[in-house]
């Protein structure tokens, strides 16, 4: 309905444009309604500026006493709460923070849910006990701890999984091969064969070189030395020059780390390809688990265990460690609530913790030095009134990527439905890691960009594939800006003494966040939450 009114208005404006003396920007005639979300930005900036939060002189209007306060409701905080609850420890409170679910948040258009953050979970490694426990509890895997469990196929990504728009047509899979010369294909295969061989390679300490969770990787200094080098340099040094291979590796780094090859640690780049050893009895090794609203489905499962009674909406504005307790102030709709807890799990990103938690330097973490660089992201959900027509013989895949495109492609929210006919409406989720330029400059641009500029960026891949048909089919678009979406494993990240100190902290404050791993994926975030809960439980 809105769209029709919009089009009528546009049409009237278009007619007016034909009259002499009237000026009209024809571009916006065929543009859907744009909504822009900046989750956590206002709260974050108020904390940064130290003026607005907590408001000076604001009285504390309530106090909650609890054993454990979990501060943050991303995957790390939720996993900590879920594990505590599941092992019978009920005396805790989980504070959501400004954006419940964090990078696992979701949105919805009509009856189509869609992610505003991450959208898939790779098959867990053998070491990912925490993920396997969760999948088992969610009844997503039979015999979840087997080498190759039987996963619920409705959650395993359905065929066709991915395709790449390259040289004006689609090819199956994202690794470029259509129109790529054989010499480059051979180089791609050499790289994959090498990383495949690293998968089961053990360091001198008997651990896998590249493990998930990352903290369980080998400490073998010879291999960790790779962290001093950037991935682009390592590739050049090892004779990898094929543009198609370098594009794909750069794409993977932007996708998982938010940085291009030149700003990614070589160790992290190899970790991406050599760490994933999960398998499924009923799917390819490269299969992933996914849901219409992305990781919000497992996140909601975790939250259900936390229960609403133990959940407190609001943002933590101050955490102080006292002699015999931890005090946290929570800002909730104009009220200030004090939580008095024996222990606290700091499950918020470190650039926020650095502003909120007092005395971090005493724990060995100097926010000005040790806060990892966070990459900015843009996630755009295009509500499609109709599926745009594909080229003859082509089928929409789950993940659709444009070779050398500006973005990371787009994912189809209704892909996993089992239906006799495809639904009338769907949502395309387009991802952009804003890896060009310094994150700080990009964030400044994001803050000042107009809706039209953001739309042009968000729609760049889709516009390349569908051209003018995109505007005809997209009724609305919700653009979620994540200025500090994820920590990037830049060269040297493994040697960050500050994050190591927080990871080791074992007093009244425990830290749980993927920032401790240095890159943001579900398994890492969940692992820190799992581990923090384990410490509280004494296991």
């Amino acid at each position, binding site marked *: 309905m809105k769209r029709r009114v919009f089009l009528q208005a546009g049409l009237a404006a278009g007619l007016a444009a034909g009259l002499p003396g009237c000026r009209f920007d024809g571009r916006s005639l065929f543009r859907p309604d744009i909504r822009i979300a900046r989750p956590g930005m206002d709260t974050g900036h108020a904390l940064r500026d130290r003026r607005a939060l907590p408001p000076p002189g604001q009285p504390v209007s309530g106090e909650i006493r609890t054993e454990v306060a979990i501060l943050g409701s991303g995957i790390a905080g939720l996993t900590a709460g879920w594990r505590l609850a599941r092992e019978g420890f009920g005396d805790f409170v989980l504070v959501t923070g400004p954006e419940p679910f964090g990078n696992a948040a979701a949105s919805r258009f009509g009856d189509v849910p869609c992610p505003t953050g991450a959208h898939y979970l790779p098959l867990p490694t053998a070491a990912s006990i925490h993920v396997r426990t969760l999948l088992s509890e969610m009844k997503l895997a039979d015999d979840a701890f087997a080498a190759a469990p039987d996963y619920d*196929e409705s959650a395993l990504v359905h065929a066709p999984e991915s395709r790449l728009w390259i040289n004006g047509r689609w090819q199956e899979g994202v690794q470029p091969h259509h129109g790529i010369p054989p010499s480059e294909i051979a180089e791609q295969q050499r790289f994959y064969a090498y990383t495949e061989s690293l998968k089961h390679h053990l360091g001198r300490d008997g651990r896998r070189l590249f493990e998930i969770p990352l903290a369980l990787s080998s400490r073998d200094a010879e291999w960790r030395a790779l962290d001093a080098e950037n991935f682009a340099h390592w590739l050049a040094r090892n004779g990898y020059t094929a543009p198609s291979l370098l594009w794909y590796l750069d794409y993977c780094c932007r996708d998982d780390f938010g940085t291009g090859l030149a700003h990614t640690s070589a160790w992290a780049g190899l970790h991406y390809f050599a760490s994933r050893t999960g398998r499924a009895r009923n799917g390819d090794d490269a299969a992933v688990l996914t849901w219409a609203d992305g990781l919000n489905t497992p996140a909601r499962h975790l939250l259900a265990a936390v229960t609403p009674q133990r959940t407190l909406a609001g943002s933590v504005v101050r955490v102080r460690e006292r002699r015999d307790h931890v005090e946290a102030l929570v800002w909730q709709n104009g009220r200030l609530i004090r939580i008095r807890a024996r222990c606290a799990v700091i499950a918020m990103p470190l650039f926020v913790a650095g502003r909120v938690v007092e005395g971090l330097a005493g724990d060995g973490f100097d926010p000005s030095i040790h806060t990892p660089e966070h990459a900015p992201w843009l996630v755009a959900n295009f509500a499609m009134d109709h599926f745009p027509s594909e080229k003859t013989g082509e089928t929409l895949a789950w993940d659709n990527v444009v070779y050398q495109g500006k973005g990371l492609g787009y994912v189809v929210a209704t892909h996993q*439905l089992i239906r006799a006919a495809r639904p009338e409406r769907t949502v395309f989720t387009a991802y952009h890691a804003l890896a060009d330029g310094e994150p700080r400059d990009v964030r400044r641009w994001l803050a000042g960009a107009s809706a039209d500029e953001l739309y042009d960026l968000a729609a760049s891949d889709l516009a390349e594939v569908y051209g003018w048909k995109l505007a005809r089919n997209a009724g609305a678009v919700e653009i979620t800006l994540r200025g500090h979406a994820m920590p990037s494993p830049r060269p040297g990240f493994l040697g960050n003494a500050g994050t190591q100190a927080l990871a080791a902290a074992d007093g009244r404050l425990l830290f749980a966040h993927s920032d401790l791993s240095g890159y943001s994926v579900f398994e890492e975030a969940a692992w820190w939450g799992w581990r923090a809960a384990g410490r509280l439980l004494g296991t």
Partner: protein
Amino acid sequence: MLDRLLILSVFVVASCGLAYELIAGALASYLLGDSILQFSSIIGAYLFAMGIGSHLSQYVKDEDSLARFIDIELLVGLIGGLAALALFLVFSWLAAPFRTVLYALVLIIGTLVGMEIPLVMRVLNQRQAEFRELVSRVLTFDYLGALAVSLLFPLVLAPKLGLARAGLLFGICNVGVAIWTAYAFRRELPGLRAQLTRAFVVLALLVAGFAVADRLVQWSEKGLFGDEIVHAETTPYQRLVITRWHDDLRLHINGNLQFSSRDEFRYHEALVHPLMATLPWAKRVLVLGGGDGLAARELLKYKQIESVTLVDLDPAMTTLFATAPALTALNQGALKNPRVHVVNDDAGRWLENHDQVYDAVIVDFPDPSNFALGKLYSVPFYRLLKRHVAEHGAIVVQSTSPYFAPRSFWCIDATLKDAGFHTWPYHTYVPSFGEWGFIIAGAQPGYAPPERIPVPTRYLNPAAIRLMFDFPPDMQPPPGIQPNRLNTQSLVHYFEQDWRNVQR
């Protein structure tokens, strides 16, 4: 003399102009259904395009008007003449952009036709004809031509020649006008030789097209319809076409034959009775797909069945088969039977959202020809379905042809087994389909073909049923068949390969 010749060409040109419009309208309503909409929108678009043509004609310089008129005649002849044939081919080979191509052609032809009359009038005007007389004569012949063709087309040309050849005939007329005019005004035309060469090339093309048009149309059209169309409808989900040839009614969905009334009883008896005759206690039956009501007709023969729930996506399909007399005669009014409950919903969604349990389920989905349909033959779908089947109940699945698509057939069997069913595959011969296969699947082992069929049948008896479960050597399961998992959808690949091997 020359002026009179021009006036005569106006008559021919006007006839051709209207003819293209009629052909496009007829073709659109023939192929797309809803003739009022098709005719109105095509006439509207065509007249609008003629307006554009008239407007554009002012940009032709006075001294060029005769030469351009001849060029335009050639273009109209070529594009207009081949349009109908091209549209037939586009419709049968590339279903998606048909409308776009149709309207693009209508606009192009309309624009060219719209330039004809203004140019003729200018040529005549240059020759110092009296303006009052000129307008009256040109328009008189214009409208006379329209009358002639509007009678000739439906009464003689369309039935005798068909749409494609009628179009080509009018194209030849246009080229004839061009050649004739060029020859008559040969002294006034500078590039006569080139123009005549072009004209004869176009003429040769059209004549050749005329010669092969019938075969081409038959070739493109037969694949889809073959016979007289008695109902054509495009719904949001599919295109339904019902054809009749003597007493043979056929349903085509998206161009694929669904049944022929001559032998559908073989298919539907084979689908229903080998299972139902062994479930004398079955009271509640679910049919997925089967909006034609023919499986329901077989089910209703069993007096003990209290309710048949039929879930079919397309309300247009179930409404058609509940109301059209020829079709209700075929399904014996099954869809109006009080024991039958028709649900128009997506079978996948409906199964997810309901939890009723049925004693038997008849699964009659379209073949797994794409990834979306392949999901209805997958392990999770069968697991979902299993939750709707009573402990001792069973399902039967239409499973493509074990002869033409052996890997697909045995893949469905492997998929049912992976979902925890015991399976009993069988097959029979349906003349309009060839050898066709079905699979009975139950949560419990121990199916045995029925000793008797308690209801009247035209085709099956217990001996015939027993034979269906025997697979001769050329229909044995191929080795190494993988079940259809959603992550890989092996079935869709098997199906594509199997039928690629069969079709020429």
